[in-house]
């Protein structure tokens, strides 16, 4: 029996195990939308395609499965670009289907034509223009395969209208065969042995964990490996939750707003055991002065990450999970040396503990105003930390990373690489779709939230009980902080005191809205929000000019952190 391109497309999604689609229809994809109700696929009508991609991205980060987007040609397609770039920078598997004008019109500046394959080329792992309906099922299969294997990433598939309407026999390819794409999963045994040699010789080692540890689902292996060695573990923003932050070996987050002990440990280490990070500049600071005395073992599934910013002494290409297992097997064969190693790093631990005691995370707890850090601490406390948390970008994002102690992978959804304001709320919606019964909290900025808040109506429509906590400082606060430090407090265009009434805004979108303006109102608001079914927006009007510390100035080195001046704790 012959099927139309639209039917083949939807049948292929079902075969791929897709359950949810985030989309918005338009002219060229109407045939698909016409068929959609016949398939076991739940579609969420997003109010902006950017939000739709962030939803698919949040869904993917929370589950590890690919998130799916379907939009129309032209403006529908171009609206996805920020979402794709966000997913690309953080290696998130999203598969985005865009309608396209009929093949014979491609290149003619037809109505709602955009060269989305050209536009998205640098911000997708791969993309396709389907020219023949006979290729459609295979391409859908390949798109999911490429998005979810190796170093994951977004894939875009452009579907011209005539291909969607054409008919052919449906053949589902069981296997994907791509001669030019074969990610390496196993580490080279020689390199693994060399790495273990370096580890056992080191006196001041740090396990430097990146987002790759989460992407490869390596948390259990990471915990075994790290506890076997007993070394400090320092996660990046993208790795929060890969290793429990409440574990005594965890130094807290690294990087520009990382914890003092984490950054000092990186600076003084004699060995970095890098598990799936990419030595991003927000983590390394000034490259010449980054971990100056340390040898580097760099494990990554993407060879281009290795040696890009920092020369690795022992590069290992492979999947974090596989290679951690290999390293543990190697360590198990050398019990004597391992005992010596553990004794040898005691002095190092004394130093790391000293740093921890000298400058723990702190803020002024005596203020008559609500401190943003206090909001996050209270949210953490009152939820028992059992939630999936997303964020926008800015100070609130860094405070969430610092003060929420993530103990499980895939519970922190944040735009690390691209730093996309507006990511938080739709990402939370995506996670909530995947996990309807879990608590999902978007810790957002007043600026970030306003970039994508129109999908509050989608949350209300589908009764998705996302809780939004706006850390409302009336500023695009991170910009203001930079202006305070580096631009003579010239707050040019960072004051956003003119705001919508977020409570009324929530209500207008059929959500509940709550507000706290003083510290003693906070607990009540949080409790009420948690007890309210459905989506809730909490407007926390916080200390306006609070700064986020520690802070490594751009281009500074790890030991040049700016710390808060007053630290009553």
């Amino acid at each position: 029996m012959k099927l139309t391109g639209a039917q083949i497309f939807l049948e292929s999604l079902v075969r791929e195990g897709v359950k949810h689609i985030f989309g918005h229809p338009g002219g060229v994809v109407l045939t698909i939308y016409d068929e959609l109700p016949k398939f076991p696929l739940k579609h969420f009508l997003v109010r902006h395609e950017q939000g739709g991609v962030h939803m698919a991205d949040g869904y993917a980060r929370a589950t590890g499965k690919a998130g799916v987007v379907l939009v129309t040609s032209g403006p529908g397609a171009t609206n996805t670009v920020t979402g794709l770039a966000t997913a690309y920078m953080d290696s998130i598997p999203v598969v985005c289907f865009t309608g396209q004008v009929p093949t014979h019109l491609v290149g003619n500046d037809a109505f709602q034509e955009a060269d989305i394959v050209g536009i998205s080329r640098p911000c997708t792992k791969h993309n396709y223009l389907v020219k023949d309906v006979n290729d459609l099922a295979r391409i859908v299969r390949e798109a999911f395969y490429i998005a979810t294997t190796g170093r994951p990433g977004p894939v875009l598939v452009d579907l011209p209208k005539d291909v969607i309407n054409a008919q052919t026999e449906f053949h589902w390819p069981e296997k994907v065969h791509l001669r030019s794409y074969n990610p390496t999963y196993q580490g080279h045994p020689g390199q693994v042995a060399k790495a273990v040699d370096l580890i056992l010789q080191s006196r001041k080692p740090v396990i430097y964990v990146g987002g790759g540890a989460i992407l490869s689902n390596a948390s259990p292996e990471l915990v075994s490996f790290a506890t076997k060695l007993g070394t400090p573990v320092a996660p990046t923003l993208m790795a929060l939750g890969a290793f429990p932050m409440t574990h005594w070996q965890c130094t807290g987050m690294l990087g520009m707003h990382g914890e003092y002990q984490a950054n000092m440990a990186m600076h003084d280490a004699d060995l970095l055991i890098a598990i799936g990070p990419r030595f991003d500049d927000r983590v390394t600071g000034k490259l010449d002065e980054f971990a100056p005395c340390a040898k580097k073992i760099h494990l990554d599934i993407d060879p281009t990450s290795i040696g890009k910013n920092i020369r690795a002494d022992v590069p290992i290409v492979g999947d974090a999970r596989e290679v951690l297992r290999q390293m543990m097997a190697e360590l198990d064969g050398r019990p004597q040396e391992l005992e010596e190693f553990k004794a040898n790093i005691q002095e190092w631990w004394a130093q790391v503990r000293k740093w921890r005691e000298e400058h723990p995370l702190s803020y002024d707890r005596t203020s008559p105003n609500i401190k943003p850090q206090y909001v996050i601490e209270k949210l953490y406390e009152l939820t028992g930390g059992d939630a999936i948390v997303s964020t926008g970008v800015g100070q609130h994002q860094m405070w969430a990373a610092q003060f929420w102690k993530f103990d499980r992978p895939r519970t922190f959804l944040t735009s690390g690489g691209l730093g996309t304001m507006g990511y938080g709320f739709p990402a939370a919606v995506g996670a909530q779709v995947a996990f309807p019964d879990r608590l999902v909290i978007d810790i957002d900025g007043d600026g970030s939230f306003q970039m994508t808040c129109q999908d509050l109506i989608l949350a209300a429509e589908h009764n998705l009980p996302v809780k939004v906590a706006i850390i409302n400082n009336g500023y695009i606060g991170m910009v203001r902080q930079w202006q305070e430090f580096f631009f003579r407090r010239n707050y040019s265009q960072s004051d956003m005191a003119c705001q919508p009434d977020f409570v009324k805004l929530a209500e207008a979108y059929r959500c509940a809205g709550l507000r706290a303006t003083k510290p003693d109102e906070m607990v009540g608001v949080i409790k009420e929000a948690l007890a309210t079914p459905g989506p809730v927006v909490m407007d926390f009007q916080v200390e306006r000019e609070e700064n986020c510390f520690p802070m490594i100035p751009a281009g500074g080195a790890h030991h040049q952190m700016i710390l808060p001046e007053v630290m009553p704790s």
Partner: protein
Amino acid sequence: MKHTISVLVENQFGVLARVAGLFSGRGFNIESLNVAETMDPTVSRMTIVTSGHDGIIEQIEKQLNKLINVIKVHDLTAESHIEREMVLVKVNAEATNRAEILRIVDIFRAKVVDVTPRTYTIEITGDEDKLEAFLKLLKPIGIREIVRTGKVAMARGG
């Protein structure tokens, strides 16, 4: 330092754009780039001449390999290989210098492929040194136009 990189790619539309976009997006240099089908019609070969320090060349190779449509990347520079480029040169050919031009053409085993009352068009193939030497000799005579193919290259032996 100059590197000649041979890249086997899927013979599909858009692959050239991916490679070119990779070079421009990451600020890598392209001195010449040459593409044509191989014996297997589903595969094309690109020969890319680029330059940069070792770290850059390493990134170029890795980034090329990372493209889904790239089958194989081979930096020929480090090993024994043959490089050739073809150049078409149109030179002023007056009665007074025709003999000299022909002498140079003969010495370099080039070929005159078109003649007009005032010009010769010469075809020459060779490696970089030979082509540079040839063009240097023609320069004082008056070169009107040069068209180069960019290099192609092949490893020696089996």
